[in-house]
């Protein structure tokens, strides 16, 4: 009989492993969409509209007769791409911002004030306003979401940087006269990898949800790009007679966001417990 704490850690990791597997499956499906979903997602067939799940159409058809399963699999490409690029962009920008703010005392207050100001706006509202300014396109949605989530990452990275900065070896290296940029790159940054990795995962999840919300409102990507949010928006008015049009894209969103969060949580538990407190 294994010891309880060890068993618990194992169990936790099992769920994390499952989440990682699900995520991998989703990514594989998205990448290989033409092979996994042979029916053309844009193939409208008015006679087949709003049919329930069947052998021919695994998840049913939408309001224009398009195969829902196929649309979801192909739509995964867009939803994942947008959210993934957002996570990457926000993490890079936020890390830079947080690193500078945490390490250079004089820049800390002004930078954090800007971060505070940006976080005073509700995420969705800021995203809507930004997309409205920039124009509705895939790239602009990514850019807007990057701006929305950068402050969040910046705060976390700054907090971790403050912790690392106080660690003795950083003082020692500074005393040796090493150039600041080298200190940041070689000594501080590697210690921030674990909170940064955790943030990537969570921002990815938030971005999936945010993009879906934007698309649902019709202020996100142009409606001809089939993301999961636009699918739900399109099926909204038929919800009472063909609920699957709303249900299945939503489940796709939930599954992806949940797996990402479980993964982020698992990574956070596994890696450096010292900086876990700051993150």
């Amino acid at each position: 009989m294994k010891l309880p704490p060890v068993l618990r850690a194992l169990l936790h990791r099992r769920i994390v492993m499952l989440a990682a597997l699900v995520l991998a499956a989703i990514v594989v499906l998205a990448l290989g969409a033409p092979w996994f979903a042979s029916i053309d997602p844009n193939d409208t067939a008015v006679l087949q509209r709003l049919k329930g799940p069947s052998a021919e159409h695994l998840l049913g058809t939408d309001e224009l007769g398009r195969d829902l399963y196929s649309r979801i699999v192909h739509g995964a490409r867009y939803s994942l791409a947008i959210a993934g690029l957002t996570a990457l962009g926000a993490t890079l920008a936020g890390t830079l911002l947080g690193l500078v703010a945490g390490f250079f005392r004089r820049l800390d207050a002004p930078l954090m004030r800007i971060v505070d100001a940006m976080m005073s706006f509700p995420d969705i509202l800021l995203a809507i306003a930004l997309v409205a300014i920039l124009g509705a396109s895939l790239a602009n949605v990514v850019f807007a979401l990057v701006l929305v989530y950068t402050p969040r990452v910046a705060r976390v990275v700054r907090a971790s940087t403050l912790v690392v900065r106080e660690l003795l070896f950083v003082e020692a290296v500074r005393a040796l006269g090493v150039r600041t940029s080298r200190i940041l790159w070689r000594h501080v940054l590697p210690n921030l990898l674990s909170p940064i990795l955790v943030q990537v995962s969570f921002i990815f999840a938030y971005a999936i949800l945010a993009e879906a919300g934007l698309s649902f409102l019709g202020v996100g990507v142009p409606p001809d790009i089939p993301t999961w949010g636009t699918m739900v928006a399109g099926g909204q008015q038929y919800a009472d007679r063909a609920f699957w049009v709303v249900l299945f894209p939503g489940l796709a969103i939930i599954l992806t966001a949940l797996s990402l969060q479980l993964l982020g949580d698992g990574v956070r538990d596994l890696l450096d417990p010292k900086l876990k407190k700051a993150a």
Partner: protein
Amino acid sequence: MDAPRLSVRHLSTSFPTDGGLVHSVADVSFDIAPGRTTALVGESGSGKSVTSLTLMRLLARSANARVSGQAHFATREGRSVDLLALPEAEMRRLRGHQLAMIFQEPMTSLNPVFTVGEQIAESVRLHKGLDRAAALAHAQRMLELVEIPAAARRVHEYPHQLSGGMRQRVMIALAMACDPTLLIADEPTTALDVTIQAQILALMRRLQAETGMSILFITHNLGVVAHHADDVAVMYAGRVVERAPVRPLFAAPQHPYTQGLLACLPGKARAAGQARPKRLFAIRGQVSSPLAPPPGCAFEPRCDQARDDCRAAMPPLIATGDGRSARCVLVAPSHDQEAT
């Protein structure tokens, strides 16, 4: 000789960790006589705090401690109960009542959102059934008992308004509020200034004289032990290595570890016959990792008097007469007493 207030027999506490089972306390036995003070002495990690928390059953549930042994406590009603086997509800009746404890950190041991009076009164209302007004009055009396000036005002103050020394006095008042017969004091003065230390210790001595309570005093400070303890149990790596009344222990320590501890005292260096001591003594080496204990005696790697058979097995606690015992193969056993 009265029956002891507390009689601990073969107490062991182990914690499962990622690296294996850690035996923080192993085979610890000692007695505390009514009205007397027993000091549990040892360095950090020797297991003395864990011993006290085990006796009070205050170990964190998440720690998954394995506890064995007995701790026979003589209650005021004349019964003898095993603290380690009591149902939790009965243990709660003893805690804060006949069995009280004060901790090392007075700065963080009081709840910041309640007044000190309320915190004392809560205990009184629980164990003595007084109503709120009577309990607060009693709380005020307790503050006066521990020599806090302007007690009537202090009763309504919050912990952050009091200094560290005063907070520790409040902790003592809290512990004394329901007339304990045994007070466990876990390094109560370590976090305080030296002058305050002396005051607190004198206060505890006075309270003991007035109430006849026993004290289990946990400390690493030999000076405090010399002045305030009646009996001493020295701990090393989770085990008791020497037991003796205080004066004989200081006069003639029997275990090499105790000898080493006493030799570290600056005063002792001078007494060793040198006109001007050139060097302070320190026991060489470090305590072994609890996950990799030496095969025999735990102190053997650091002991200058070690023999071959010290590595063979853990020596038992050997009675050496006059109420003393030591866990060492070098001592001469007395044949007319049993060491437990």
